[in-house]
C-alpha cells in the first residue's frame, strides 16, 4: 500500500504546487488517472480554476470515480461560479447518478452553454436507471423523454445530435418506444443538419427499425 499512498500524495502535491497552466493540466491528469476517491475534493476544486484543459481532465477523473463523487459534487454546487457549475454538470452527466437528474433536466433545456446542454442531453439518456426504486423509475424516464423531445429543437446541431443519442439510449431501456421512434423518424428526414439526420437514422437502426420509416413501399 505504501507506494500507492505516496503516489497519491505526490500527485495531490503536484496539483497544489502547479505554477503554470500546462503544469496544472499535467498534474490533474496524473491525479485523475489514479481513480482514487481521496482525489474527489481536489478534482472538484480544479473545476473552478478557469483552466479548460485541467477542467476536462478533472471531469474525466470524476466520471471515472463515478457514484462516490456525486454527493460532494451536488453539495458544492451552489458555491460554484458559472464555469465550475458547467463542468460539474458535465461530470454529473457522465456519471449518470439519478440524484443528478433534476439538474440535467434543467441544464439540457436551459443552460447558456451549448457544451453543457450537449453533455446534459446525452446524460439524460444514460441515467443509472436501476439505481431508482421500481415504482419511481418509469416516471423518471418519462421526465428525461419529455425534456429530450424539447431539446431536439435546440438551435445548435450538436445539442440536437446529443438529444438523439440520449433518446436512443433511453428507448433501449423502455418497453413503450412509439413516441421516441416517431420523433427520431421525423428528425431523420427533416432536421436541418445532415449529421443529425444520419444519427437519427442510425438510432432507428439500432432500435431494430431498418430503412425508411416514412415510406413502406419496399415490402
Amino acid at each position, binding site marked *: 500500500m505504501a507506494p500507492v499512498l505516496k503516489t497519491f500524495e505526490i500527485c495531490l502535491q503536484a496539483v497544489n504546487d502547479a505554477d503554470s497552466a500546462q503544469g496544472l493540466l499535467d498534474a490533474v491528469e496524473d491525479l485523475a488517472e489514479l481513480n482514487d476517491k481521496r482525489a474527489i475534493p481536489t478534482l472538484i476544486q480544479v473545476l473552478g480554476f478557469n483552466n*479548460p*484543459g485541467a477542467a*476536462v481532465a478533472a471531469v474525466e477523473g470524476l466520471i471515472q470515480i463515478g457514484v462516490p463523487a456525486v454527493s460532494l459534487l451536488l453539495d458544492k454546487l451552489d458555491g460554484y461560479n458559472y464555469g465550475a457549475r458547467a463542468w460539474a454538470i458535465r461530470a454529473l452527466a457522465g456519471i449518470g447518478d439519478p440524484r443528478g437528474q433534476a439538474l440535467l433536466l434543467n441544464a439540457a*433545456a*436551459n*443552460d*447558456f452553454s*451549448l*457544451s453543457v*446542454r*450537449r*453533455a446534459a*442531453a*446525452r446524460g439524460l439518456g444514460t441515467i443509472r436507471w436501476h439505481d431508482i426504486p421500481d415504482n419511481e423509475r418509469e416516471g423518471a424516464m418519462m421526465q428525461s423523454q419529455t425534456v429530450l423531445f424539447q431539446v431536439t429543437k*435546440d*438551435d445548435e*446541431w*450538436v*445539442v440536437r*445530435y*446529443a438529444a438523439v*443519442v440520449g433518446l436512443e439510449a433511453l428507448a433501449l431501456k423502455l418497453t413503450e418506444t412509439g413516441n421516441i421512434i416517431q420523433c427520431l423518424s421525423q428528425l431523420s428526414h427533416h432536421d436541418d*443538419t*445532415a*449529421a443529425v439526420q*444520419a*444519427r437519427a*437514422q*442510425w438510432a432507428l*437502426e439500432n432500435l431494430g427499425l431498418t*430503412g*425508411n420509416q416514412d415510406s413502406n413501399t*419496399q415490402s
Partner: protein
Amino acid sequence: MSDAAPHNPDGKPLTVDQALININQVADKGLRYYAAWWLGKMRSNQPEAVDALLLALEDATDRSPDGGYPLRRNAARALGKIGQNDTRVVPALVTCLGCDDYYVRETAAQALESLNDSAAVPALVALLDGSVEAAVQVPGKPHLVQPYNAILEALGTLADGEVVPIIEPFLGHEVPQVRNAAARAMYQITEEAQYAERLVTVLSHDQLQLRRAALMDLGAIGYLAGADAIANTLAENSMKLIALKGVLEHQLTDQAGQNQAEQQPVSLSADSRRVMTLMDGLL
C-alpha cells in the same frame, strides 16, 4: 434556448425592413455596419438587400483608424452568404480583391469561396504573384502582404489542377497557417492523401491554436482517414465534434451520390457509423 434573433444596438429586435433602412442611411455608421452584418446573418437574400450591400462594398466614409473599411468587410461577408443568385456579386467581390485594406481582401476571398464560382480563380491566382518569396510580413502589421490563407483555401474549393504548380510552393512557407492552407487546397484539388496527412500531423503540434486550425481544416475537407486522429486530438470536444461532423457529412454526400447512381434508398455506410461512434464518445 434561443439566441437566433440579433438585436439592434438599442436593444430592440431588428426587422428586415429596419435593417434595409439602416443600411441605406449614412448618418449613423454603427447602425449601417450592424445592418450589413445582420442581413448576412439572417440570410436576407431579397434583391434590395443585395443592392444595399453592393453599395456598401464601395463605401468610403466608414474608415477605421488604420485606414481600413469596416463596412466593406461586413458587406463582403454578408454577400458571401446571400449573393448566390445575383450575377453582379462575384465581379464586385473580385474588385474587392484589389482593395488596399488587407481585411477587405481577406473577407472577399472567403466570400468568393462560399459563392463557389470559379470565375474568381484568375483574380485569386493573381494575388499569389511573386510566390512564396513575395509572401512576407507587412512591417508594423500583424499580417502578411496578402491574406494567403483565405486565398489558398478559396483556390482549393474553386480551382482545378492547373493551379497546382502555383499552390505547391506554399507548402514550404514559414508560417504554419499558410502551409496548412496550402496542404488543404492541394488535397482538395488532387485528392492525394499525402496532403491531408500533413494536416493530421499538425493535430499533435505543441500549440493549441494550430491543433484547432488543423481540426477545422480536416473537417472542411472531410478527410475520413483522419477521423481517429481528430477524436484523439488534445483540444475541446466542441471543436473535434465540428471536425467530425465535416467528415461525416462528406461521407454522407459521397454515399448519397452512389445510392442515387444505383437507385437505392440512402443507407448508412460502415464508415459513417464509425465516425458517429467517435462523435458519440465526445458528447
